[in-house]
């Protein structure tokens, strides 16, 4: 199997995730898109590890997974807190930090 196809798939997934972050209104869906981007990166790392023949990429993939987990913890906590006060998960609503 040509590892280049995996890199291409990773690029597609990353783009879909990026568009999802920019376009979707629900905060949870935005988070899912961010997870999608992180996993696309993981896929790219693993594909390149296979292409180079050493395991450095796979090690980094572990790091990425840890970071993703931590980020989800913090992010979901923030969203839940905002939801409790505002009763809405839209990311367009809270715009108080403007000039």
């Amino acid at each position, binding site marked *: 199997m040509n590892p280049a196809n995996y890199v291409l798939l990773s690029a597609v997934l990353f783009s879909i995730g*990026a568009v999802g*972050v*920019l376009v979707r209104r629900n905060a949870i869906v935005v988070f899912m898109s961010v997870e999608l981007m992180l996993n696309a990166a993981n896929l790219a790392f693993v594909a390149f590890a296979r292409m180079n023949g050493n395991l450095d990429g796979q090690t980094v993939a572990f790091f990425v997974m840890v970071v993703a987990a931590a980020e989800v913890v913090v992010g979901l906590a923030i969203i839940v807190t905002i939801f409790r006060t505002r009763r809405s998960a839209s*990311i*367009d609503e*809270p*715009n108080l*930090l403007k*000039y």
Partner: protein
Amino acid sequence: MPAEGVFSLIWLLIALPLAGAVILLCAGRRTNSWGPYLGVLTVSASAVLGWVMLWEMLQVSPEQRTVEQNLYSWLVVGDFQADMAFQLDQLSMVFVLLITTVGALIHVYSIGYMSHDRDRRKFFGYLNLFVAAMLILVLANNYLLLYVGWEGVGLASYLLIGFWQYKPSAAAAAKKAFVINRVGDVGLSLAIMLMFVTFGTVSFEGVFGSADEASQGTLNAIGLLLLLAAAGKSAQFPLQAWLLDAMEGPTPVSALIHAATMVTAGVYLITRSNAIFDIAELAATAVIVVGVITVFMGAIIGSAKDDIKKSLAGSTMSQIGYMVAAVGLGPIGYVFGIFHLLTHGVFKAGLFLGAGSVMHGMNDNVNMRRYGALRTVMFITFITFAAGWLSILGIPPFSGFWSKDEIIHAAFEQGVVVGVLLVIAAGITGFYMTRMFIMTFLGKARWEEGVHPHESPKVMTIPLIILALGSTFLGMALLFWGDIESWLEPVVGFESKPAALSTAATIAISLTVVIMGAIVAYVMYWRRPVPIEEPRGSWLTRAAREELYGNQVNDALVVKPTYVAARATAVLDAKVVDGVVNGSAAFVGALSTRLRRYQTGFVRSYALSMVGGAVLVVLALVLVRAS
């Protein structure tokens, strides 16, 4: 010669009045009751010590009369060294005696004159400070220490002119005196710097020893700068405008500082620097020119003033002009300039103290148009003033005759022009001094209502009597018994050249001119009644009343441009400097107002900018890799 025996106390001459000044000024009101007496005591002690030192000096042969006392190394910076060292030679000896003796008499007089003044303790403190500073000036053995004394007397003059500082005119006069003096001081400091650059030292020994090695140009420059300094301190043209205003100070101040001693410091400076002026001919000529101009200026101004003190101040300006012209003549004139300085110091102090005595009796009125016939009520003042009057006119055998005539004779040795000019000025002197004498003591009484003139107390008349005795006999004493020419010769050199006129002819001509001037005054002021209102007078009289427009010239040349420059600087500071600072602050503010719009508060727009930035970075990387 090192300082031994009584000469090891040279420092005490200065320390006594200095201690007096410190005690009186620092200890404050506690010393109010005995303060004046302490002031008199310190200066009198210095005077006694000075006379003892003179006695010792007379026992020694002329080559050994210079005594040096080095207290300590004051400034040592690299190659430059200036010591706290004093030099007592024949020239500084006569100055020490003049300063301390006349000073002591004036201190005694001030006990009576200032007896009603609340601040008299401070007055004696300042007077002592002045005596100490003047002694430092004449005893210094290097130009830097001389400059310390120079500045000190300037300070004392400021404090004493503005003694009644609640009077705006007195405060302004003190400031004017100090600022004009400062211009002269610039001359002295530049001269000192030039000396250091040229000779590597500023001590008298060093400078005078190597004077002939320097170029004419350098020596002329130093000489002209020293002349500028002397002109400032001695109220010579063009820095003469402060002297008449300085009469705002109490009369003892006018007598001591602005007649006998401080204003003679310029003459001392030029005489002490004779080694430089002997070689620098341009500077010496400039000295003569300045002296002669001032002789006439002072005489003309003194002829038109109705204020007795201002008229005497004009006279001082004129007489110092005589001294300056004399020392500008070179070795033929140094001795006579100093001789006239000594006799003038005594008789002018006597005249000023006499004027003070008159003012004391006339409720401090200075207008001579309100005097008249005072000889009937103030006999001692009348007689002592007459001694001073005859002395300044130069009538033999009074002191002024011997010294002034020698100067005129020396001027004729130089050439005819200067001699003739000095003779004419002597005639004008005869006029204005006789005018003053007649208006004050003779003629009819023109006193105001309620004025009862009376003779002054003994504490004031005794110094007057002593000074009058000096005005009468000092000239003969110094010339015949003291042999002033050979006394000063080792320090300044003395020559005699054949003159255009013989001595007898000079005496005859100058006496005739003087008496003619006196007769003019007699006709104008005794034969005719003196008007109480000031008459309009000729254009010269009006110009002389305005002090020959000296103040207006200073105003236009110096004061107005300084104000313009100051205002321009203030505008520059407000508009340009503040403008730059405030402008940059405003710029930052405007920029931030523009950039604030990007803070929309929407998460999605922030995410978009992040994506946009990431895309740019990737593009840049790709382009760098590709190229």
